[in-house]
């Protein structure tokens, strides 16, 4: 037998001295790389951990402070740092959506029958990789130039600029309407009372769209039924927590609402399971997702475009020079969002799906879209997870991009201030390098936490 094809088995069957020599040789060969990694990657990071406990200005001032820096971060000393995560949340959500074009392209490539054409397209996707990131950055900066940039010219030529202008005038009104009439109790509009009846249920019962979203989360968690008493208690505590977040500190109202919510959810779950146990799970999940979707959509509509920018009226909006347009510009960056590395990774994952699975699916009558959502995407979740981890890391730690585009303060009204840029400010403008290291540690732990969640919940169900 041999564990590795082609390896002389005789070497591995000898005693420990031969094995030790064999392994020592391999270690020696890896030594330069390991040494380089240790010196140039791990050592600086360990130094960062060390200096997170110091007041350090990068020079002569080096004072051990223990956990003081962390106490300041978590003790409300830097609210702007935490506020910057809202931008990260938006970018992360956008980046998750921006993953899908690569997935679809990979699926299309995978489905190509001709290997020659597959190879051709793969090469076509790889070629843009030779363009350095900075060049791509500068190209896109050129696209976004308000006066001569390609982007504004395209929008004007296609007439989309006037559409955007119409949105700019209309969306704030929609947002105001939703905020006033749908998300808050408005007893002064009897004419709308009938129409608003369903929505008037949202606020008193759920405290707003966030409450509706919280309810949806509870339903998702309950979809497998209430199994045991400890689980019920855990859910009760969870609901109270969500309710506190959604409704604010009103203990009595909170308790009543939480009781109603839990009771209603429990009743709904029990009834659903008794009616049709087999379908209950999917039904509850669909219901929860609908509730979540409605709640989040309502909130997004009020928060995304609450104020008219007036930037589109003259046909040359400054995408990187206007505080309200910076974030959309960053989200739009890289359109059509088909990354070479992503496509190749997904393609590698798709190539592992055997043909028999497809044949079985066709026998079951699963169509084009069914194959995508029931076979291909579930089976490449490992690759999706890997990409999501890289995406989260780069989104959370990114600051160079914003520094080059917007400057160290994040541009007008500090619209582009990310946690990474905040860390940069602390380090290089305020000369608080030790504190910046502590911020970096916090972001590292956050990333680790997110990575663990992905590892746990994003996996292929074999």
């Amino acid at each position, binding site marked *: 037998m041999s564990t*590795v*094809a*082609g*390896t*002389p088995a005789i*070497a591995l069957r000898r005693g420990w001295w*031969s094995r030790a*020599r*064999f392994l*020592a*040789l*391999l270690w*020696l*060969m890896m*030594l330069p790389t390991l040494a380089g990694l240790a010196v140039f990657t791990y050592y600086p990071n360990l130094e960062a951990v060390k200096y997170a406990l*110091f*007041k350090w200005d990068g020079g002569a001032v*080096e*004072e*051990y*402070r*223990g956990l*003081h820096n962390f106490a300041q971060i978590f003790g409300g000393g830097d609210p702007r740092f935490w506020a910057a995560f809202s931008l990260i949340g938006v970018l992360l959500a956008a980046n998750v959506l921006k993953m899908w074009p690569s997935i679809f392209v990979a699926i299309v490539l995978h489905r190509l029958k001709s290997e020659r054409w597959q190879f051709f397209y793969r090469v076509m996707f790889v070629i843009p990789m030779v363009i350095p990131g900075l060049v791509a950055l500068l190209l896109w900066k050129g696209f976004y130039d308000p006066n001569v940039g390609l982007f504004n010219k395209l929008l004007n030529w296609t007439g989309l600029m006037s559409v955007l202008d119409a949105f700019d005038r209309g969306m704030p009104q929609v947002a105001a309407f939703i905020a006033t009439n749908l998300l808050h109790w408005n007893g002064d509009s009897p004419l709308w009372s009938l129409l608003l009846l369903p929505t008037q249920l949202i606020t008193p019962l759920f405290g707003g769209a966030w409450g509706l979203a919280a309810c949806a989360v509870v339903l998702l968690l309950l979809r497998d039924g209430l199994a045991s008493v400890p689980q019920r208690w855990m859910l009760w505590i969870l609901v109270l927590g969500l309710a506190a977040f959604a409704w604010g500190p009103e203990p009595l109202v909170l308790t009543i609402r939480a009781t109603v919510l839990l009771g209603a959810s429990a009743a709904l779950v029990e009834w659903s399971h008794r009616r049709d146990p087999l379908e209950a799970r999917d039904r509850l999940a669909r219901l929860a997702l609908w509730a979540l979707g409605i709640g989040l959509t309502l909130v997004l509509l009020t928060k995304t475009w609450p104020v008219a920018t007036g930037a589109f009226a003259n046909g040359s909006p400054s995408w990187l020079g206007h505080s309200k347009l910076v974030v959309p510009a960053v989200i739009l960056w890289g359109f059509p969002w088909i990354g070479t590395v992503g496509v190749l990774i997904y393609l590698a994952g798709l190539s592992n799906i055997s043909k028999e699975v497809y044949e079985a699916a066709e026998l079951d009558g699963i169509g084009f879209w069914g194959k995508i959502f029931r076979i291909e995407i579930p089976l490449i979740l490992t690759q999706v997870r890997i990409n999501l981890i890289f995406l989260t890391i780069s989104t959370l730690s990114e600051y160079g991009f914003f520094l080059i585009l917007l400057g160290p303060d994040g541009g007008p009204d500090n619209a582009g201030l990310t946690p990474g840029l905040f860390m940069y400010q602390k380090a290089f403008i305020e000369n608080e390098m030790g504190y910046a290291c502590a911020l970096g540690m916090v972001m590292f732990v956050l990333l680790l936490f997110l990575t663990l969640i992905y590892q746990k919940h994003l996996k292929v169900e074999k």
Partner: protein
Amino acid sequence: MPPQAPTLPRQTQGLISAAVTASSPRCSLAPIRGLGLVVILLVGCGDGSPSTDQRQLMTQGQEELARYEFTRAHACFSQVRAIAPAHDVMRREASLALAVACHHWQPASAERIAEAEALYRELSDAGVGDEAVQAQLQLGRLAELRDYFGDREDLPAARARYMQVMERWPQRPEAGEACLRLAAAWAQSLQREDVLRGVAVLEGWLDTHPDEAKASIMLQYLSELHWAFLGDARQAVDALRKADARGFDGENREWMFCWRLARLSEEELHDRDLAVRYYRRIVTDYPKCGAAWEAQQEMKRLGAEPPPIRLFDPASAVKAGGKPGRETKP
């Protein structure tokens, strides 16, 4: 079809096979042994052991100290202390240097500060040589300053130490510094009585030590205490004028003292002539300070004709015999 066992690419198989072949007894391991030997030598190699010669150690320690390499300096001076006889000058020097290395070790810690304090006490209690004075002064500094995060300042202890330096070694240059430090240690409380004590300390010292080398600094600080702390412009102006007579002490800051003199003279003492005089000094003696033009405007406002600003006056350089670094004073 059963799942296939994973196979390595052919290239990797070849590499492993080559590695295994190389590790077999038939293949000479000499090159690899050599590599390992090199690695061991590199890893095991370190600095050569320090010399046992005291003077060499002191020199080495002093060089390390000049580079702010406190760890190495500590090692050198510790060795000297271990070798040198008990009452030797070199041992005292090494003790002081070791104390300084501990005192300013980075990052500072309570342990290192305690070690420094013990060494300073040892020298101070012995009371012999320059080192004793320095040690006593440094004990005061240890008490007065915040040396590490969480350290508490002990102003009464600091003041006591400075007093001891002034009383035990009144003729030493360190005594003047101790007097200055004492005054600052009093003023730190910001209480009027304490500031007055600080003023009294400085004035008393200057009266009894007319040749004090640090007199200009003392007078400049007296001016600061009188004006900023006590609001007494007249005393502040008097002190600064005395400092001016001796020559201000502070590179690139002389014009600031002149500016203060001018403004206080004009605004608080209503002495126009004195104000004009000091504004003129700024224009003529410190034309590159950036405030010369403003000084000219102030002079005009006070009804005086200002001199022109000359960034370089060849006549004054030739008159001074081309001696470097001298600025003419009125």
